[in-house]
């Protein structure tokens, strides 16, 4: 279907089903129950899941396929965001032109940055991209204030009057899709459960599915094979008479455009943007997402993005009182001690948890969560079929054994 083989089609269908039913799946606990705080099915968080999923999918096209580790990808997200907000401020409040603008802006910027950065590889490439991102951040923060709004960033204001919208005097525009307000939500009450269906989320989800489909096509295309060749051995590629540069540049620009799309969607959802979106920690975050989920796999980045955003929003909400409730069944002293032990990892300490999880993944599961899942799957399979063998149908090139060690 759609030019995919049956395995990819089923993967795409599963992802489509998951994203479309997300308001149900992410809200497994009844409203008002103790566990309701683990519900992630509210619009703001769900939007972030899919938007950062797009960002990570794009990053994965660069890092997962070519092995070039960019430490400045947030710059494209930021540039896209600025492009989108200006489109909404000046031309129309419809989100589609804004998103298109974001993708174009980010793509153009990626051409410039990529053309220069890709002249070097390895750590030099990482530093160059980092340098560009930090430069964009510093400029957006200081000199370019007339365009970027400096520290406060840009919001839709009552003074903005887009050409194609007839806003009343003093009315603050709202992002919409052909008249449908992005913030409209339909609520469905089913027994004790409350499900929210948000227009913005579904628009973002559709974009994510498109982005995901594109990434599958890229992974399976001859172009994707070339990118993998760049990763496994660039020298051998150039000995066969092929120039790797156009391929890597194309991958860089594509992934920059993905980042721009994510930036445009972010603006479409909350109609604001600030320079901190381009800070290098934001670039680091997308690296974390991709690695955590599994670089070079299709579904990994989406999983990683979802996991990090879930941790950010849910773990940071847990506090000592909640812990005491959970461990109330323990004897008093032990209860306090357990809460004391867990305390550094929750609430504001969620970054610590993230760092530890990330380190464990890099150390023990270089393939990320996806590899973890595969290993568990293989273990289960191995128990059923005693012979087991290489249950993995995909071709995994093993590193060549080093003769001199």
């Amino acid at each position, binding site marked *: 279907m759609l030019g995919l083989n049956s395995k990819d089609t089923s993967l795409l269908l599963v992802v489509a089903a998951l994203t479309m039913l997300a308001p149900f799946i992410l809200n497994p606990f009844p409203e008002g129950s103790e566990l309701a705080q683990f519900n992630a099915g509210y619009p703001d968080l769900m939007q972030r899941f899919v938007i950062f999923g797009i960002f990570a999918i794009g990053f994965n096209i660069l890092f997962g396929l070519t*092995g070039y*580790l960019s430490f400045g990808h947030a710059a494209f997200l930021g540039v896209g965001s600025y492009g989108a907000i200006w489109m909404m401020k000046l031309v129309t409040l419809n989100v589609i032109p804004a998103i298109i603008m974001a993708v174009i802006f980010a793509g153009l910027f990626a051409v410039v940055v990529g053309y*220069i950065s890709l*002249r*070097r*590889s*390895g*750590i*030099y490439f*990482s*530093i*160059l991209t*980092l*340098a*560009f991102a*930090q*430069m964009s951040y*510093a*400029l957006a*923060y*200081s*000199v*370019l204030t007339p365009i970027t709004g400096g520290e406060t960033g840009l919001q839709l204001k009552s003074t903005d009057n887009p050409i194609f919208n007839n806003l009343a005097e003093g009315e603050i525009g709202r992002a919409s899709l052909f008249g449908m307000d992005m913030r409209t939500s339909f609520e469905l009450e089913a027994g004790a459960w409350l499900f929210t269906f948000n227009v913005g989320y579904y628009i973002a989800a559709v974009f994510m599915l498109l982005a995901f489909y594109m990434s599958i096509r890229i992974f399976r295309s001859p172009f994707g094979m070339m990118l993998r060749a760049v990763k496994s051995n660039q020298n051998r590629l150039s000995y066969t008479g092929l120039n790797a540069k156009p391929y890597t540049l194309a991958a860089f620009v594509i992934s920059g455009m993905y980042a721009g799309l994510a930036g445009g969607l972010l603006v479409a959802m909350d109609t604001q943007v600030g320079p901190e979106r381009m800070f*290098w*920690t934001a670039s*680091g975050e997308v*690296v974390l997402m991709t*690695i955590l989920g599994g670089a070079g796999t299709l579904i990994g980045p989406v999983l990683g993005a979802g996991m990090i955003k879930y941790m950010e929003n849910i773990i940071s909400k847990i506090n000592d009182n909640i812990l005491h409730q959970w461990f109330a069944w323990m004897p008093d002293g032990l209860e306090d001690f357990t809460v004391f032990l867990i305390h*550094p990892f929750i609430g504001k*300490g969620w*970054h*610590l948890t*993230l*760092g*530890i999880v*990330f*380190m464990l993944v*890099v*150390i023990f599961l*270089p393939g990320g969560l996806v590899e973890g899942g595969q290993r568990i799957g293989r273990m289960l399979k191995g128990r059923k079929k005693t012979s087991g063998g290489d249950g993995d149908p995909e071709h995994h090139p093993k590193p060549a054994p080093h003769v*001199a060690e």
Partner: protein
Amino acid sequence: MEAIILQILNGLDKGSAYALIALGLTLIFGTLGVVNFAHGALFMIGAFCAVILQRLLSLSHQVVDETRTDFLGNPLKVDVPYVYDWFGEAAGQAIINWSVPLAIVFSIPVMVAAGFAMERGLIKYFYKRPHADQILVTFGLAIVLQEIIKYFFGANPIPTPAPPAFTGSFDFGALIGLENIIYPYWRLVYFLFSMAIITAVFGFLQFTTFGMVVRAGMADRETVGLLGINIDKRFTIMFGLAAAVAGLAGVMYAPINSPNYHMGMDFLVLSFVVVVVGGMGSLPGAVLAGFLLGILESFASLPQVIDIIPGINQIIIYLVAIVILLTRPRGLMGRKGVMEE
């Protein structure tokens, strides 16, 4: 003339910090071939060594002072640091005031131990993995370290004053026959201190047998190993040394910039740029580029320069890095064949 000298001086303290961190990064990279993203965290831990020592020295117990009363007429309770009891009040106060220089002694064993623990406990397992994995795992470690510091010390900067003898400024111009070059004492101390450390590190590598073996190992690790020398052990010691250099840079930087948990990351990004500009794997290059970029940054902050090119002070370092990487791909003093896969 005065303005130029002043800008050079202003660039020196930041340049010294860049140079020291970049020196440590290059030592680790040159010996072990590891790109250490957690090096900034070591710098930060060094700065917090100064904070910890200051707090330890100020540990106090309450004593009822009969001679003074509070507003209700009760005898006043005063906090008396333990060092007052042990060394007398004047000496005790002096010890507390001099906690930052004392932290140098305190931090060296701490940092060396931290370096050993990092190398033996984590980085050892990453020599055969790709550079990207090394970057990622040390990046993760940096996050963990900085969050631990944040958990114990909070997110706000902690003022750590220099000894009273070195607070304030002096007229540097008077020393060289010019006028009106006011320069803080501590920054001069920092510069001299960093020069001493840099000299010590180079001297150690150049004039001791140990240093010679390490240099040989940097040039050709396998051959040194074939000669029956346990090069890994020496490289581990070099990692400890690099950690100590970063830590000392942090300790002495504490009075200039109050330590906070993200100072390491802020410096790390710039230090990497410094290393790359200096040339990956070149020790003199790292030092030279550190001072050069520090001074360039301070010149770019001149109001006259900002008037011509607004915002240049924010981006000058990155701009220089981009230009250098594109025109001299190996950096200022890079060696052939290092990181050129």
